[in-house]
């Protein structure tokens, strides 16, 4: 029952990424907190959402580009980590989430190809408006089903994996978190690259860095 509810949540949130609204409920930060709240641990949900948000800061659904799907990645990661109190639950959940984000990305590409076969052709002699609405809303429904399927499968695999190897994880909590943050540092670098590069933004970046370091001490 819980797996079905998580899968439905994943499907619903996945819709927000492209098909419906784009209110950013699908961002890891929000999806993580919502999944955690649903599973009774919003703080864990937000921790995982924050870590995956760091990785996916530079990933957004732009044009025809293939991108990792942050929503299902996050829901899968939170549901994986919440199923176990083993020391390896967090890093394994993050790894499963990152991997599953790629699988989600491939499934979006497949869905877009399928949509191309479903929608009415502009060159058709006559376009029935009911068929147009059915094809369009049908594609939205397919996206929901895709999200449900990807999330459900990911959670099932992730939970088995954590149950098998989570207990024998050799690193402590601080080292595990540091390992995840080291990988996320690449995204922070990419973001600064996208914002104009170090040479152009160095004064603002350095000011922010100082504010961040000093802020931690005082707040």
């Amino acid at each position, binding site marked *: 029952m819980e797996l079905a509810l998580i899968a439905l949540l994943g499907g619903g949130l996945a819709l927000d990424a492209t098909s419906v609204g784009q209110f950013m409920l699908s961002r890891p930060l929000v999806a993580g907190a919502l999944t955690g709240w649903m599973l009774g641990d919003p703080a864990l949900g937000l921790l995982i959402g924050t870590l995956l948000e760091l990785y996916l800061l530079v990933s957004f659904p732009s044009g025809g580009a293939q991108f990792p799907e942050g929503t299902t990645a996050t829901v899968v990661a939170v549901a994986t980590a919440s199923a176990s109190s083993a020391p390896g639950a967090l890093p394994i959940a993050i790894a499963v989430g990152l991997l599953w984000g790629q699988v989600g990305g491939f499934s979006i590409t497949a869905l877009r190809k399928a949509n191309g076969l479903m929608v009415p052709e502009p060159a058709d002699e006559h376009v029935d408006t009911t068929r147009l609405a059915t094809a369009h809303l049908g594609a939205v429904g397919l996206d929901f089903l895709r999200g449900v399927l990807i999330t459900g499968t990911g959670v099932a695999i992730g939970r088995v994996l954590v149950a098998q190897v989570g207990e024998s994880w*050799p690193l402590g909590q601080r080292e595990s978190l*540091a390992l995840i943050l080291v990988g996320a540092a690449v995204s922070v670098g990419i973001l600064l*690259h996208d*914002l104009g590069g170090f040479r152009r933004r160095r004064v603002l970046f350095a000011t922010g860095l100082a504010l961040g370091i000093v802020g*931690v001490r005082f707040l």
Partner: protein
Amino acid sequence: MSALSRRAITSTFLRSFLVQGSWNYHTMLGTGFAFAMLPGLRRIFDDDAEALDASVRRHLDHFNAHPYLANLALGAALRLEADGTDDQIVRRFKVAVRGPLGGLGDSLVWAAWLPTVSMAALALWWLGQPVWVVVGLFLVVYNVGHLTLRVWGFRSGLRDGRDVARTLSEARLPQLGERIKSIASLLVGVLAGLVLASREGLSDAGPLWLVPAIVCFVGGLKIGHRAWRPAAIATVTAIALIASWGVLR
């Protein structure tokens, strides 16, 4: 030809939230655009089935834009249809605006607004704010910008029709994007500082962790987006190897 009713306009605006619902590699937003236009087109051509059919096929054509700024084209196309504009002019108008609306939207929203609000929320989390504050502020602040852009775009398009290009240039969206990117640059620094110095941060695990983190940061800075996938693969591989080592130990 009937004038547009408030109901048809509202319905078209609400449907714009689903404009990407059937995104595909053939017509991209084309089907979604025609789907959103339907209430307005039905009202405009309520007594002429043939004209309605022709107008729907016109809007099924390939179209792509940023989903928020697509509202500008939607509003303008609705105005052009209501004014009885020649179909070739409507087609040419849509071809002319799709590039700028895509580029401007990506640069303003995906490359500036979204990362800025995300980083502000991440910074709040690192400063120890509760879950509801972090998530609530992120959603409220982001969507104030999001909905403002959608409503402004739709109203401007509906008001100005073909002259919407002038409205777009007067809005100075690239300059706005640049200002937001300056704030984002400051926030990248703040976030890096918090991740380095906070409890639960990198320094907490020991100074040795700073070395690979700085190498990764510089790698991302120099290589750009091409560095993302190798970094994700390396992280997953490292976790898998450490887990395997734990099992075999």
